[in-house]
């Protein structure tokens, strides 16, 4: 088993699936950093562990399902869903997607940048009907490292800088679900690529998009200046983006526009 994949397997199974915080020291360095939206949680046993505990208390039987894993040996990205029921929401259930990019030191994780679709989770709680979970990867722990492809990275970077509109088989947020549509948030957005790497023809990235709202969002009218973070994994075939998924921090955008403080730890 690929060493980085083996570490992520332990992360997903021994820690998240079992809610076993005693595993943390074996999986992450002391000064582990998690970046999500505009937030940075520094320190494994402090801010990170506290934030995770809160989530696992809110969803005591939370599950993590892995949909896609890529690695080039140095970096790893994972597309996943978290799903479960929230007793504080009268048992309402939800399933929401996330895409995370990891760095490691050869034995333990040192950094994670992630976006999770908490906006979709909130919508599911509100309507009382959960979205279905996407199909699990057939063999997530058997993925092998693939060498980086600078040409694929360049295609993905160009697509991001051009505005990252859905093309081919790419889906943003929960738009892959039947009955859901893509929401273009910004008019002529500016995109800053914060992180990007490839494993073969698959490219993972984190970016920050800014612009003026194309339509009212979060109580703000069209034309309001705004920004958000997003992470994604796309496949490049014959020089074009062929498929992929992107998760945007719509929840963070909504809260900023409504002027609401965000509690993360």
């Amino acid at each position: 088993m690929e060493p980085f994949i083996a570490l992520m397997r332990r992360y997903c199974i021994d820690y998240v699936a079992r809610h076993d915080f005693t595993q943390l020291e074996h999986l992450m360095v002391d000064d582990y950093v998690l970046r999500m939206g505009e937030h940075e949680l520094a320190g494994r046993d402090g801010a990170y562990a506290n934030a995770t505990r809160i989530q696992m208390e809110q969803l005591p039987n939370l599950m993590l399902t892995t949909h896609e894993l890529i690695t080039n040996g140095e970096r790893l990205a994972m597309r996943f869903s978290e799903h479960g029921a929230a007793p504080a929401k009268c048992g309402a259930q939800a399933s929401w997607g996330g895409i995370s990019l990891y760095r490691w030191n050869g034995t333990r994780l040192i950094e994670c940048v992630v976006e999770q679709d908490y906006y979709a989770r909130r919508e599911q709680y509100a309507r009382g009907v959960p979205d279905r979970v996407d199909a699990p990867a057939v063999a997530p722990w058997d993925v092998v490292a693939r060498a980086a492809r600078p040409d694929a990275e360049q295609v993905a970077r160009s697509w991001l800088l051009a505005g990252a509109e859905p093309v081919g088989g790419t889906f943003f947020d929960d738009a892959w679900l039947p009955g859901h549509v893509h929401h273009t948030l910004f008019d002529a957005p500016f995109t800053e690529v914060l992180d990007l790497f490839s494993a073969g023809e698959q490219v993972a990235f984190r970016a920050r998009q800014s612009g003026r709202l194309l339509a009212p969002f979060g109580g703000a009218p069209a034309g309001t200046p705004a920004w958000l973070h997003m992470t994604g994994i796309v496949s490049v075939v014959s020089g074009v983006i062929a498929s992929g998924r992107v998760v945007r921090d719509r929840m963070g955008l909504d809260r900023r526009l409504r002027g609401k403080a965000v509690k993360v730890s």
Partner: protein
Amino acid sequence: MVGLKRPGQDEERTALEAFRRYVTHFVNCHDFGALPDIMAEDYALRTQGLVISGRDGPYRAAVAKQLEQFPGLVFTPHELFHVENRLAVRFSEHGASLRHGGNAAAWSNIAIYTVRKGRLAGCSIEQDYYSRREQLERGRAAAVDPPPTSPWDVPASHDDPQSAGRVREWLQSARYLDQGNVRLDGMCSGAPRIIADGDVEVLDLLAGDNRVAFHAVHRGTLAGDFPSDQAPARRTAAFIHMSGFVHLKDGEVERGHIVRDRWGLFRRLSSARPLREREL
């Protein structure tokens, strides 16, 4: 949360808690050290017409062999219900096989577990090893069905003897072969009948709140539509084990899944070599 066990904690576990522990602390992390906490010593596995007795003997050897072949094997539940100390589940196992150049497969399984004093004491199950073999040979894996949103929050069901009776009738009349919305071996249409006539004996059954899981054997004669190394001999006496998970509406089977032991039948027809425990 995982932590030190309190005295008697094992006996407090519900069927769902015991099953969850089996999935998260044993199968998905391949940790045989957890087995004594999860499974009774006299665990009995009923499959393919065999009874494999004992947690630490042939059962353990068969699972170890499978995990060696599929070192990244994943267990994904799709639907489940539980009534008192019993639990029925439809699930997939999936991963890549070291013996097939890394080809991957996802195969369906339906099982009924019995829990005693917080540990699994028995299981009736059929697994679609025939589909697994096909996928590994052709090098194209089937998609995995999604898990339920919140399998570990499923409340206990009430025993449903009326639905149990309807499903027994439905099976014994062999109507299961002609119901389009019941997937036979993963197929929504066009599945071979395999057995043309005969009788269905129900070996195990669990019914709760309009859902029924069963383990059965259909004995009769070959319909002549099942492939093997030799041309299937129509009208030859044969049997096939199967397990199912069906939903009822207004007292009738509305939809569901059935997994038949096509692999066991294939082996019987192909070489007349009986399955041995070590080959599971």
